[in-house]
């Protein structure tokens, strides 16, 4: 008997020791999580989210709670799938003052708002590298406008938005000399480098963007930003680091000051100064690219001037709030009263009060000045500090019930805390190194709440491995109860930084299903097969082509010569939802096209060798998709092969199967 007991005890001890090993992550999810994220066939996701693509320059549209990716919207990157940035119509979208730039680093997104609530009209996106702000029309999920930002570099604190979509901002992450005067020694950083904050006005009706004014601020690194709302409407808050204004080994040299700043900007006041003519006009160069839905054509213009207000001279537009230490996220709660600075190297989270800020400004309760800008006393504007929240606080969003959720990069967790009392309520681990987090509508006046998504930087052990580079990661939490509950891990595309989300109906109600052919004002539109033709203008050959299930018209072209520039202007004649046609031709050096019903899209093709070149539809359109094809005969340069083409509609075939091309 005793031996049995001994063996039993030994076994128990062994099990206990094994159990002492740090726990894996398999136990992270509790019972009903699968049910909560399962969206049955035939049902739709409850929430539509827009996730930044980071270094891929795109945006992905992801349904929640399922975590399924629904679409990739190309914004700052060429996209061979549909010809964005390759087609003649969309090439101008990626023009900048530096020329055509087919990529960027896309970090943050902002959904347009009315009265502080998401209205489902537009999505704004920033390009970090070559500073740009884009607008995506949510009726079509297409990028329809891109504005380059002058006097800027590393457009990081962007595109944050005021509560009625009056302005979207673009704050420079890199302090830079003004455009065109950058040939200076780095030693002259303190005198020559400035931080520019751009306020981009947004047209009420057409959503058109223009840089209404810029504010010249000290040469900090402006990191993130959020607009005031409710009572703090009229103000913008920017976090800034490197108040040391160091210019080498910033890892050490920009981490010396105990406190950096949050800059509070009174943009209403700035507007007044602008009206009063206090801005100086500055000669710059920046591109403004717009896509016109009616002509389905983008154009790029270079603008030459911007109005700049000086924060140093106009004393009451900017104030500095000391914020410990190297602040990253700068978030405003739904009431507009509390401004949360997340010092990424600080061991606490400071919460500032807008009322106290107003009082301190009124009483001129300043502790000093930085480059002519008043610094407010930390204690005078502080509402409270969240003590020991975790390590590396980065971003905070809100559920509208008085709770804040902060991501902790170093300690890999999300911490829930009470805004009023600054007490930590709950914490949950993430896997691993969480960057941004997003509560549905969490930066609006009325958060939808319910779900929180953490965007993690490291995904070891979360998914099947795929070589040295692993999938990017998001984690979905249910925040409807007192305790946060992990529901789902899902991989994402690119490196997700920030995201925006709202109830799906906000976006589904406005969808364009197809473009009306009758309203297509493209200069090379072909509204019916009868209008199809081939026109030679010198060495340019314009093909007015149509596509419909399941053929192109014309389907055969002869008389193209080496050295010709062939423009296939393909109009998709379909007038039905979800019937795009593709177009590809052998040897095309750019991409294919994906043409929506009723749309005209142009592929430029320059054949380099004589031969017979097949062209075909790349999107499986119908039972006869595989038959949707034709040929282009290319003859050597200087040959006199006649320019002819065949239209495959019956009437034409009855008379003559072949038509002659026009020569202009």
């Amino acid at each position, binding site marked *: 008997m005793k031996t049995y007991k001994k063996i039993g005890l030994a076994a128990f001890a062994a099990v206990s020791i094994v159990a002492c090993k740090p726990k894996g992550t398999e136990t992270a999810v509790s019972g009903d999580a699968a049910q909560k994220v399962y969206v049955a066939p035939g049902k739709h996701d409850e929430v539509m989210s827009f996730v930044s693509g980071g270094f891929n320059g795109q945006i992905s549209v992801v349904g929640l709670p399922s975590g399924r990716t629904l679409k990739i919207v190309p914004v700052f990157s060429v996209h061979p799938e549909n010809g964005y940035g390759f087609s003649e119509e969309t090439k101008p979208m990626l023009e900048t003052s530096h020329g055509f730039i087919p990529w960027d680093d896309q970090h943050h997104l902002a959904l347009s708002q009315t009265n502080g609530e998401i209205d489902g009209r537009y999505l704004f996106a920033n390009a970090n590298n070559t500073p740009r702000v884009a607008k995506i029309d949510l009726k079509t999920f297409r990028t329809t406008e891109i504005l380059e930002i002058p006097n800027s570099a590393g457009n990081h604190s962007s595109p944050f938005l005021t509560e009625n979509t009056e302005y979207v901002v673009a704050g420079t992450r890199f302090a830079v000399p003004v455009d065109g005067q950058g040939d200076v020694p780095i030693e002259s950083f303190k005198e020559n480098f400035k931080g520019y904050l751009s306020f981009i006005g947004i047209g009420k009706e057409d959503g058109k963007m223009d840089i209404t004014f810029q504010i010249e601020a000290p040469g900090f690194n402006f990191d993130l930003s959020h607009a005031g709302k409710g009572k703090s409407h009229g103000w913008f808050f920017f976090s800034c680091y490197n108040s040391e204004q160091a210019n080498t080994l910033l890892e050490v040299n920009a981490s010396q000051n105990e406190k950096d700043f949050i800059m509070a900007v009174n943009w209403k006041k700035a507007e007044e100064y602008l009206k009063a003519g206090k801005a100086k006009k500055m000669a710059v160069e920046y591109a403004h690219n717009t896509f016109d839905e009616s002509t389905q054509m983008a154009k790029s213009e270079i603008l030459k001037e911007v109005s700049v207000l000086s924060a140093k001279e106009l004393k009451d537009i900017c104030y500095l709030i000391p914020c410990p230490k190297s602040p990253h996220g700068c978030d405003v709660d739904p009431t507009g009263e509390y401004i949360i600075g997340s010092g990424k190297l600080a061991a606490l989270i400071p919460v500032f009060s807008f009322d106290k800020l107003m009082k301190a400004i009124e009483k001129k309760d300043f502790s000093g000045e930085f480059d002519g800008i008043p610094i407010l006393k930390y204690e005078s504007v502080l509402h409270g500090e969240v003590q020991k929240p975790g390590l590396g606080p980065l971003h905070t969003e809100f559920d509208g019930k008085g709770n804040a959720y902060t991501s902790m990069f170093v300690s890999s967790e999300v911490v829930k805390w009470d805004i009023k009392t600054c007490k930590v309520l709950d914490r949950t681990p993430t896997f691993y190194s969480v960057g941004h987090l997003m509560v549905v509508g969490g930066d609006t006046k009325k958060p939808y709440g319910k779900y929180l998504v953490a965007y993690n930087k490291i995904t070891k052990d979360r998914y099947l491995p795929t070589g040295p580079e692993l999938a990017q990661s998001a984690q979905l939490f249910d925040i409807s109860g007192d305790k946060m509950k992990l529901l789902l891990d899902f991989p994402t595309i690119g490196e997700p930084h920030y995201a925006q989300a709202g109830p799906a109906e906000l976006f589904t109600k406005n969808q364009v299903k197809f473009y009306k052919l009758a309203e297509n004002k493209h200069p090379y539109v072909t509204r019916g097969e009868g209008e199809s033709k081939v026109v030679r203008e010198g060495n340019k050959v314009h093909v007015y082509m149509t596509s*419909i299930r399941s053929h192109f018209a014309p389907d055969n072209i002869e008389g193209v010569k080496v050295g010709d520039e062939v423009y296939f202007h393909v109009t998709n004649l*379909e*007038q*039905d*939802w979800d019937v795009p046609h593709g177009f590809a031709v052998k040897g095309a050096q750019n991409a294919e096209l994906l043409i929506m019903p009723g749309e005209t899209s142009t592929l430029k093709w320059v054949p380099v060798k004589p031969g017979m070149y097949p062209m075909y539809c790349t999107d499986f359109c119908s*039972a006869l998709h595989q038959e949707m094809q034709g040929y282009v005969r290319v003859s050597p340069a200087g040959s006199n092969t006649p320019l002819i083409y065949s239209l495959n509609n019956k009437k034409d075939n009855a008379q003559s199967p072949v038509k002659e091309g026009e020569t202009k």
Partner: protein
Amino acid sequence: MKTQNLNKWTKVLLIILGIGLVTAIFVPIWSIYLNAPQYPEGLAMFIHSNKISGEFQIINGLNHYIGMKEIHADEFWEFKVLPYALAFFAALCFLATFLNSRKILYALTGIFLTFGVGFVFDFWRWLYDYGHNLNPHAAIIVPGMSYQPPLLGYKQLLNFEVWSYPNIGGGIMIGAGVILIILAFVEFRIAKKAI
């Protein structure tokens, strides 16, 4: 003599029928609905007295696979006649009421019923023609298959489920036929009793 007059209710109903038939000129008479896996939201086509509405262009696009003719309103003489026919019947309703004429009522009932039978036959012939008169060079030929939509009710045609039902105008016309029969019968009884 009282019995020479039409019954008060007959007059009221004839006026309503007249108004109804005028209405039928302006509203869809018949609907054909199609559902298929790739068209979960369905396709609808409406036949009016003078035109076709709905998504018939999309249906035309699909029908070319099986070699069906395209549907175009201007190929139907019926659309030129139907509005006048309905107006004519409405006029007869009003005329019978104001002239207090049983004879007109009987005549109206007779012509309308003949017209009704003719209308249904013509519609059927129409559907038959579309369903059977197929292009021999069509991409998809299923041996022995024709694509005649149902005159009334449901039918499966390849991957499409097809429903065919009277719309408001058709309902009015059917109702008018039934009511006219009843009125003619009732008035005939009244007239007979009076003798």
